[in-house]
């Protein structure tokens, strides 16, 4: 448990704040994890490595949220969806910089990287936006 870059969610957000979308790969069995985890739970090996993912993927499903908790009230109404990257790895998040009427299941979206917040949990945020070709 003394790795310089432990295979944990905290470290994943550290990478995100450096502009990197990362996942964990097991060097024993090849299983990939997003969210990351410190042990491969396919083969229970600890021979893990960080791999970077291309930060663009396909929209699986989405919604438009009109009622939100306090801290997201400023964005209402906002689009929110699940995006699938390579190897079936997925993340959920807000979809911005797009007309809500133009959102379609199956469309390509890319991940944006935001700075980390000051207070707990001191993580950066991220969101999705249309790919600029």
């Amino acid at each position, binding site marked *: 448990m003394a790795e310089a870059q432990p295979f944990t969610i905290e470290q994943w957000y550290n990478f995100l704040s450096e502009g990197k979308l990362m996942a964990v790969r097991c060097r024993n069995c090849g299983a990939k994890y997003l*969210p990351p985890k410190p042990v491969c739970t396919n083969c229970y090996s600890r021979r893990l490595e960080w791999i970077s993912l291309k930060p663009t993927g396909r929209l699986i499903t989405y919604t438009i*949220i009109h009622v939100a908790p*306090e801290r997201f009230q400023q964005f209402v*109404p906002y689009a*929110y969806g*699940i995006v699938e990257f390579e190897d079936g790895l997925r993340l*959920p*998040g807000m979809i911005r910089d797009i007309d809500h009427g133009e959102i379609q299941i199956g469309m390509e979206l890319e991940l944006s990287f935001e700075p980390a917040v000051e207070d707990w949990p001191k993580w950066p*945020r991220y969101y999705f936006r249309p790919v600029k070709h």
Partner: protein
Amino acid sequence: MRGKPLVAVVSAGISKFGRMDAYTGRDLFLEAVDETFNRCPNLDPKMDIDAVFVGMMSEAFEHQGHVAPMLSHSAGLLSAPAIRTEVACASSAAALRLGIFSILSGMYDVVLVGGVEKMTKRTTPEATEFLGMAADFPFEQWTGVTFPGLYALMAMAHMHKYGTSEEQMGLVAVKNHHNGALNPKAHLQREVTLDKVLSSRMIAYPLKLYDCSLISDGASCAIITRPDIARKFTDTPVYIIGSGHGSDALGLFERDDLTSLMATRRAAKEAYEMAGIEPKDVDVAEVHDCFTIAEIMAYEDLGFCKPGEGGRFIEDGTPMLDGELPVNTSGGLKAKGHPVGATGIAQIYEIFLQLTGQADKRQVDGCRIGLAHNVGGSGASCFVHILRGEM
């Protein structure tokens, strides 16, 4: 042995559901306990009750953790040791399942199971925040999803894959409000039209206000015993003959299929096999309609209809109060209300009333097999219980 009674339900009770301004959670719980004891005069609470299992979702609403001994002591059961179970909105179904295990283990003969949630003293943004804590923090809460949002993501996937319509979802709300209007304990006791449902304000597209269950105060309670001693307490015991529990990934984004809850399918399989029955044998069901799409998915995942046919199932009228398989005769979470920790046992209460002929205006004639389906959060937990009456 299939269909063998696991335990008997010898009494049950719930508080009034709704906005109960004068009542804290422990006071609501005592109301549910009081109805339960009143229905069962042969029970001597202090002598007979061996233990208490109680479900509550969130310590945040009343800034109160460690509620199990508090509720047990407040109900006058100081010598009954008490444990709280938490699996979000399925917390009290978990209490029931563990109560069943504890009786089967031979450690206890008579157990009080219950649930409570006191929600309405908080603002709507606060309640949205507290309920949201049952979603994955690092990836779901942190990125701005809400519970209606999570079910909306499933609704969109279901519509996309199967052509399910907003009208079909709306019909679930119409049905459940119809039933709720017949239930004096329900939070909202009034019918709604499909038009009103469809024109209600948007919460998370495609889910509108009337697609969503209510934020309510309420508590629920049941007494379960070893089947062989049930008649000491009542002439009309109801037997639990199947209990199923399934889990899934917490994050919706970590699940393969977004149009079905694997946790429900697993829980249903375990419960049906234990009970030795099939879906077609069910006479009356309480299912987890936290959102209208959830009830449609429940029809499919419980085997009442095929995958993708949940929309047509409600259109055809099968789950109506006068249909072939009445679903949510109580009004469901949609109209009876959804004090989350209380919901699982409140479903058992409704099935108990139905199977003992005490459901008054919403009584289903000649029902013998009842099913209760309680889901936690966006579907990472599910419990299915199958009950059999003696009528």
